[in-house]
Structure formats: C-alpha cells, structure tokens
C-alpha cells in the first residue's frame, strides 16, 4: 500500500487517529491507551501485516515524553511510523509491545534505561547499560554532575 491507501486503512481501523504525512513515511499519532490494540491489529490484519519493528526510540520532547515505532511489512514492503506521547514526566507509562514483536524487549529496556519510560507488561524491565544510581541521561532536564557532556 502507498501512503494514501495506508492512511485510509488506518482510518478504517479508528476514525479518531491523527494522521500526518511525514517527509518519508506516514506518521500516526496514537494516544497511549490505544497503542497496544492498534499495534496488534497492524500486525495481524491481512492487508497490513506489519511484522517487523525495525526501530523503537524513546524521545524527550521537552514537555512530553514519547515513543516512536518504525514498522515495516516484510511481505508488502510498506512502512508506517507510530508516535505516542505522555505529559506525565514523573511516571511515564506505555503498554509494552514486546509480545507482539519480540525485538521490542531490548529496545524497551533501552528506552527505560536512558529515558525512564516504563512499559507495562514488559517481561523483564531492568536497566540495560547503566546501574540504578544514574538518572535518565537522555532526558533534556538531566543534570550531568561529572560533566562528561557539556553543552
């Protein structure tokens, strides 16, 4: 499917979703609560078959924290980007997609480690690179005491 067909397909799943035509890929803005069910449908529906999650990135947008999912179908070769965000910086939480795409397991642990984003129902959400005494370095309000990184 090309971008327009994909946009119509997303509309047929849920009317309320906001769709943005990105420079490269089609982007869908998903509320955190609808994320899991949309992800599952995108993988399972015959027309879409997004079976390959090739990138999962946690992003600090300043006010909000968000997660970006890059999905691709190995059968149809089309790509879609899901974006979700939350304003809760104290306890940001999304549903884990690690049972839909197993690769999300490590990616989500990385996002938790570096941005402090929690994923509900993740099988093993521990810190990956850093130990627990560190803050969350990729957050924009992170204060670097040792000044390894200066801005």
């Amino acid at each position, binding site marked *: 499917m090309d971008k327009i067909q994909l946009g119509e397909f997303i509309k047929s799943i849920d009317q309320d979703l906001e769709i943005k035509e990105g420079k490269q890929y089609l982007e869908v803005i998903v509320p955190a609560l609808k994320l899991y069910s949309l992800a599952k449908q995108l993988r399972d529906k015959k027309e879409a078959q997004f079976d390959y999650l090739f*990138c999962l990135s946690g992003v600090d947008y300043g006010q909000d924290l968000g997660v970006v999912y890059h999905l691709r179908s190995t059968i149809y070769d089309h790509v879609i980007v899901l974006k979700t965000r939350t304003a809760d910086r104290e306890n940001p939480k999304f549903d884990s997609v690690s049972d839909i795409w197993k690769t999300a397991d490590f990616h989500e642990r990385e996002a938790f480690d570096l941005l402090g984003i929690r994923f509900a129902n993740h099988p093993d959400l521990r810190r990956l690179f850093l130990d627990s005494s560190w803050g969350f370095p990729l957050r924009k309000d992170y204060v670097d005491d040792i000044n390894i990184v200066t801005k």
Partner: protein
Amino acid sequence: MEEKVKDITSDEQQEYVINMGPQHPSTHGVLRLVVSLKGEIVKNIEPHIGYIHRGIEKMCESITYPQIIHLTDRMDYLSAHINNEAVCLNVEKALEMDIPDRIKVIRTIMSELTRIQSHQLWWASFGMDLGGLTCFFYGLRDREKILDIFEETCGGRMLVSYNCPGGVMYDIHPNFQKRVKEFIKYFRKILPEYDQLLSGNVIFHERSKGIGKLSLEDAISYGVTGPSGRASGFSCDVRKHEPYSAYDRIIFKEILHTEGDTFSRYITRIDEMWESMNIIEQLIDNIPEGPYSVKMKPVIKLPEGEYYQRVETARGELGVYIISDGNKNPYRVKFRSPNFVNLSVFNHITKGFKIADLVAIGGSLDLVIPDIDR
C-alpha cells in the same frame, strides 16, 4: 566423610551458573554472559551489557553533524565506513542535495571493501573460536591488503572517517583502481582456500550443522538482520529494498539461505564476499569523472523535521533517526544498531544446546560489542 559427598546427579532441579566474560576471548569484546547450565546443557543466557557504554546518542545532541560522523566510526568499528555513510546520506537527504555520481560510486566501492574486510576478520575469529588457529592468520593476512588500500586513500586504516556531508574527504588515490583490481584478482584465488580450510571440514560441519536454529518467523519477530537474518531466509537486504548510493544501478543478488543454523550463517557470509567482489568489479572501471565533494555551508543546519536513513552494514541494518529542531545540533539522534538487536536473539537460539555450541553460535552471530553499547 561418606555423608558429606552429595550425589549431584540425583538432584534434577540443580542449575549451575557460570559467568562468561566480560574479558572472555570468545565474546569478542566486553560482553558478559551469565549462563545457567544443567550439566553441559545451556538453560538460559542473560547478557549483561554496558561496559563500554559511552553515551554516543547523548554526545550527538551537543555536537555538529560533521562531528557526529567521527563518533559513528567507534560504534561498529569493522563497518566504520558504512556507519559514516549512513549519517552523511541522512544529512544529504534532509538538505535535499543532489550527489554527483562519482561520489556515489566511490562510496559504494568503499562500502563493499569494508564489508569484505569485516567478513574476513569474522571468518578469522570464527575459525579461531572453533579451534582452527590457521584461519586467524589467513584471514588477517588478506584483510591487511584492504586496510593498505584504505590507508592510501583515506589516511586511516580501520576508522577511516572518509565520508563527509556532501561527498568524501579526499579524491581517491591514483593507485586506487589498480590496487583494488589486484586485490580482487588475488582474493578470487584465495577465497576457495577458505572453503578448503573450514567450509568442507568434517569437524566444523559436526559443530555447526543444526546448531542454533533460528526460524524465519523468529528472525523477523526478533528483527535479526544482516547475514544472520538472511541465513534464515529473511529477505532484509537494505541494498535491495531501499537502494542508496550506487546500488540501484548494479546487478547483484541478495544471498538467502533457509536452514537458519550456524553453518548457513557461515556460508551466507562466505557467499557475500563473492557477491561483494562482483559489485566492486562492476564499478571499479566505471568511476565517473566529476567532483569528489559538493561544497557545503560551513555550518550545516538541517530543516526542522525527522529523518530516517537505513543502510546495510556488514552485520545488518543500521538505522539513523535524526530529529532536528533547525539548529546546528540534532535534537535527538537514535542509532538502530544491528548488533544490539541481534544480541537479543542469542538466548532464544542457544537454549538446549551444549556449552561448547554457545561459542559457535555467538561467533556465527558476529557481534561487535561497541555497537551494542554505543
């Protein structure tokens, strides 16, 4: 005395936990694996990473785009040139630049040379992991020839930093074409020797066939790319699916095998070396004339937006995701590194095999640790 001797064979539930790494020679870097064993059978592997986490993504947020290129060298140091290319292509795409053909062809040839030397080092160390020390000398001997070619043109041997936004740093050395052709001629004669040494070896077959099977569904679900994924039949070659540089104008085939075991991961890489030589041969005599670099503004600022570029490194799909807010520094950079994702499948495919197979499977995944930790 008699009472103190405990019969361990009677205890069905007992698991023995050993620590492999972080300084173990067959983990190829500072990777620590906590391995649960029952007798000789591996029950669980838990990778502990982050020993050389340098925070490259964080560092990128405070430096300029041309500076980022030099950090990407230090991720997957065996695919240094291809990592550089990923950032450059992304910056050029964001600026909507037209890149002259000469640059594209030079980059493609360099990428394929990088792929060959990476596979040579992998072959050398994989052979050594399985007890064949001769492989190590053969592999490194031939790799030296490519590094010499790099040195002549780029100045660097391993971390070349040859790409820059808008082209390459310097024009190719006058000897470049001659030496590459000499190398191809030499390596076409030498590569069958690799097969004689290892590919046809009965002991090697026993240790690799049927070991560490990865099915196609799992390869896709775990996102295992590169030769490891293609050995399971997962068609994931970015050079075919989203051609960049000069890959759209040459004829080459994507190497696919279906068995998904250690041996087919091995044979996929050997086949890829042949295919890379085919690619170089198609291009080396047809390097177009033209500038080797497009003049860029002294300060590169990307327009506001998000850019994603995928390239095929020697180990799989590298993604560079840049979010720009219009400044000279990126707002956020994410590297989707192939090794990080390939590591996640390690536990899944090693369960139930013997501890000696763990080394073979780990070698066949071809992990480079700095790329995992970033």
